[in-house]
């Protein structure tokens, strides 16, 4: 990417996702995701799968306690106490609620324009990319990320894979070293592999042909991933069913069955990940 391209990329900020956006017009792919919180049981299988797929280091108890964990996807746990502000809810206590939180692949990502070296940028297929060999470790992106899903290598974790553990590293993705920011990539190595296979046969990637590691390991199939540019894909149909699209707000909802929402929607980051609300007794 040249300086010219870099500035063009910055010029796309808060413009992508709008009608007539040239940057995406030619694109065959636009990756998106749906996470159904009603089926998520908070089992952490997705987190484990992500560690295995993406060469994530295990940092140890002490560093994890200091918030240095390198989990690209984490299960956030909320405990509903039966009181919401002043108002008592109908049921005294509703227990834990889980949200798998990974990079939301924002269409208008706050992390992108603050990178001084354009190590993070938007790909034409709608991914928020992080180029490790370009990153200088300024950590502006992480500070500007409202979801706090960017992870910085404060240490070199190569000792994590003491022999023979290095044999389990995924060869399709870099092993990051000290001083580099990293984040969820929507398993870009799998996307590229699927695109490669499809191109060999002169076709596009079909729906369901490529799965992210978290989706693949989810026992309740709470995570749906696919191509939003394909109107017939499962993820497109789910977005439509819950009246979600880029630019839509929660106020636009028409019916109670539309459960889709985006985390921190008011920041206008336009994430490519939508969540489906958990169904409570009182909602029925």
């Amino acid at each position, binding site marked *: 990417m040249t300086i010219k391209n870099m500035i063009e990329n910055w010029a796309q900020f808060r413009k992508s996702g709008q009608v007539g956006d040239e940057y995406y017009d030619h694109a065959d792919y636009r990756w998106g995701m749906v996470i159904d919180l009603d089926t998520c049981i908070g089992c952490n299988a997705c987190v484990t799968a992500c560690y295995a797929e993406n060469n994530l280091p295990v940092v140890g108890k002490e560093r994890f306690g200091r918030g240095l964990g390198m989990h690209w996807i984490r299960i956030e746990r909320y405990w509903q106490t039966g009181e919401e502000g002043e108002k008592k809810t109908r049921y005294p206590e509703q227990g834990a609620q889980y949200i798998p939180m990974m990079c939301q692949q924002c269409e208008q990502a706050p992390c992108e324009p603050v990178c001084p070296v354009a190590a993070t940028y938007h790909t034409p297929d709608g991914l928020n*990319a992080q*180029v490790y060999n370009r990153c200088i470790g300024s950590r502006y992106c992480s500070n500007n990320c409202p979801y706090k899903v960017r992870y910085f290598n404060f240490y070199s974790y190569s000792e994590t894979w003491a022999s023979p553990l290095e044999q389990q590293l995924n060869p399709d993705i870099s092993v990051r070293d000290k001083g580099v920011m990293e984040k969820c990539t929507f398993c870009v190595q799998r996307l590229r592999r699927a695109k490669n296979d499809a191109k060999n046969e002169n076709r596009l990637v079909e729906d369901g042909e490529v799965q992210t590691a978290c989706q693949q390991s989810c026992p309740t199939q709470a995570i749906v991933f696919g191509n939003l540019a394909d109107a017939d894909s499962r993820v497109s149909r789910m977005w439509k069913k819950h009246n979600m699209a880029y630019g839509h707000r929660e106020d636009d909802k028409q019916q109670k069955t539309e459960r889709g929402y985006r985390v921190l929607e008011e920041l206008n980051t336009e994430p490519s990940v939508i969540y489906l609300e958990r169904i409570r007794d009182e909602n029925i």
Partner: protein
Amino acid sequence: MDAHASVRVRIVSDSSASRVTAYLNVGRFSTDLRLLILVLCFTSWSPQQVLAEAPAQPIEFPHDVHTNAEDNAGNAINCLYCHSYARRSSVAGIPTLAKCMGCHRYVATDKERIQQLTRYWEQGKPIPWKKVHDLPDFVYFTHERHVQHFVFQQGQSVQQVCGYCHGDVKTMTVAEKRRPLTMGWCLKCHQQFQDNPVDVPRPVADWHINATDQSLKAVMPADTAHAEPLRKAPSDCWECHK
């Protein structure tokens, strides 16, 4: 015993003598061997660049004898016969010793290098070839996509397609690095037909080689062959760095 023995038997049955058209003429390499020793002496103190250009291989493998039909007795082995992973994998691969021995149990067995090869074979050790074209670990180049696109979908000759990045290996003895293989060099192809080209198109002399092998389909004219397909060549960072 018998895993090893059974492998051998299988290899022997694989090697059909009809594939080999003639004995290889490798006599002139005795001079080159002396040169090689000279180079070895010099490389101990000469700049890094000399090592990078022509690493001293355990066996001085002559690419031209195997592939260049013009100055040899009709050996024109396709690049993809030995580097068979190039069409289906990200790495092109060095052929197994078994593949060498498939021919060389019978062909040119009186030559010194073949006897060296046979010693490796009998000891059951792979030949410790040195890597000539090495990319950094954060670059995920794929041979498959390039070979599938240019050779099988577009029908260019294998020699030309390999030659884009490796030079005309058919005229080399030991493979040398003839192209820089830097990112700017890659992008010169990948961006020249984009909407906002960063550089002037690469001159034909940069990549064209006089390919002598047959292509799978009709050959396109040299000046138009690349315009349309390369327009779609990705110039996105995440295609190679991930």
